[in-house]
């Protein structure tokens, strides 16, 4: 199948290095301490953060002077093309929960919140490829909204390699084409990688190109998230101010 047309356009009309449209909204869950909705094209994810709050299950607490971070990932039944009822703890969602938890733990300053726990709930409302990155981006926004101290914003983006072209931000069709799929999560100002996952194989020189492209994408997302947060903070401040 042809994923990049001779004119250099992809199936959905994007250029190979073009990202899907980003849209974010902060404060979508009123009861949560922090929440956000993040859209990358047709992928739509909602994240809610509760905490830092009292540890509910004392047995889970390993380290007493660090906050416990928990994450739960779930996909809505209606999020995919075919409506399948998935059991709650299937292997895929457990794996993604773990990935998100480890990525977020890397940036949260857990030592500032001893004896407490932070719960992150992410749910996929529409799945169209790149749910993993969308979840991480939404979780970052929600954590920042909850006022949890972080050393940097984590952002994530995927990239692939199809028809001997590196492609940024794969959608579902490109994702399921069987080519390589690299998901990268970075700390943009520190320039550190916190997440790197790849399906299939790639030669090292091409991998570097694809990785570079994904990193560029992460930085673009970071700029967008930063703008959103700054706007949101400004709004809150001037309304309160008296």
């Amino acid at each position, binding site marked *: 199948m042809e994923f990049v047309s001779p*004119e250099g*356009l992809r199936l959905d*009309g994007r250029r190979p290095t073009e990202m899907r449209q980003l*849209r974010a*909204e*902060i*404060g979508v869950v*009123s009861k949560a*301490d*922090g929440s956000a909705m993040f859209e990358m094209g047709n992928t739509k994810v909602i994240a809610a953060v509760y*905490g*830092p*709050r*009292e540890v509910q299950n004392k047995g889970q607490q390993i380290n007493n*002077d660090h906050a416990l971070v928990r994450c739960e990932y779930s996909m809505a039944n209606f999020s995919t093309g075919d409506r399948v009822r998935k059991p709650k703890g299937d292997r895929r969602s457990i794996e993604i929960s773990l990935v998100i938890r480890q990525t977020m733990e890397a940036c949260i*300053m857990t030592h500032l*919140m*001893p*004896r*407490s726990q932070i719960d992150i709930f992410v749910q996929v409302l529409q799945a169209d490829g790149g749910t993993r990155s969308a979840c991480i981006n939404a979780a970052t926004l929600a954590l*920042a*909204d*909850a*006022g*949890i*101290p*972080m*050393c*940097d*914003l984590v952002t994530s983006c995927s990239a692939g390699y199809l028809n001997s072209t590196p492609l940024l931000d794969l959608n579902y069709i490109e994702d399921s084409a069987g080519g390589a799929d690299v998901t990268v999560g970075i700390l*943009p*100002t*520190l320039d550190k990688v916190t997440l790197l996952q790849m399906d299939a194989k790639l030669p090292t020189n091409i991998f570097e190109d694809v990785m570079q492209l994904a990193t560029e994408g992460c930085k673009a997302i970071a700029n967008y998230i*930063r703008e*959103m*947060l*700054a*706007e*949101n*903070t*400004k*709004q*809150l*401040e*001037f*309304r*309160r*101010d*008296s």
Partner: protein
Amino acid sequence: MGIPYTYPIDVTGIVGYIRTNRYPFVAIRADMDAVAMQDDKPFPSDLCRTKQSLGFRVFILSKSGVAHSGSEMRNLQLSLNQTQKIRLQSALEKLESLSSKSNANSVVTVADSIPIYEEGILKGHGTLDRKGELVATVCGVVERINKLIYVRSLRSRYKPETGDIVIGRVIEVAQKRWKLELNFTQDATLMLSSMNLPDGIQRRRTAVDELNMRSIFTENDLVCAEVRSSHNDGSLQLQARNQKYGKLEKGQLLTVNPYLVKRRKLHFHHLEQYGINLIIGCNGFIWVGEHVEVEDKLAVDQANDSEQQIGKSDQNSMDIDGQVETFTPLDTRQNICRIANAVRVLSALGFSITMEVIMETVNLSKTMNLDIHEMLGSEFYVLVAESEAERRSVTKRKR
């Protein structure tokens, strides 16, 4: 296909609209004749041609919607009509222009670097030293006090300070202590020993007192107390050594974001014209309840104690007394609801909550002759936003 269109335009043209009611607008002009297109028709200047391939051109008309998405109301699901939307927008813009300009520049987000103007600064909360550069770890406003630089975060859990008046809900009765939930990172503890006993006598707490702890507060009771100390490991100690502290009854609890409550000299308010007690807890818990005379309560408690000593036979009669006691007149209940709704509106709009602002909102609703339930309608939100803008501009002029 269900797409609305207009036809004909220039004999063979057709215009279809696929609506999302959202930005950006994308115009696609497609020719099916594969003849090279001529840009003879002038388009508005803000058009930019983005894609061109095989007689198929896409124009993005306007992206200005992106900037506005942030100004939508958070946590506010209101159906505003067009006029109300514009009025709310203009009121908020007025508020934005009124806010001090210095604040607008000092807003930081996570990992933004904070400029340092002098040597030997002290870094406070919400900051981090990274290779000699000071960066923020939370979203908020940079505050500089002499050499101390810290970031005041807005939306976050309650940050306790000694002496704060807080309201909490009892979630556990443990040994010699109650565990209270007060929107803090941990449950706060209220020791039996840092509590005034109902009989008002200062003495050592005995094992009997410990057994009777549930007669003072049980689970799910609301308690007003004062922050005694917060420890290094994050735990929080409370005390209630005063008659005005204690269990809260006959009223409503409202939770707002703690950043909306400013620390004041006075957090207990007695609104005499309504017969209502208003307690604005520093942790964002606000209590609106019927006014209770402190001395009366003590006397009643003593009377109860003496009755308990008489015997269990009187228990039933006392319960009936208790029921008579809990009757709250309809007027008071309505006033409680009115004040509670005023707080709800203010917190949804994100305005700081003080006694004066609450009373102003209540008076506004009364002068508008609005019913209590109408206070949560979209019209009243717009009115409150407008009056707040008015109020702030007046106070600014006075300065």
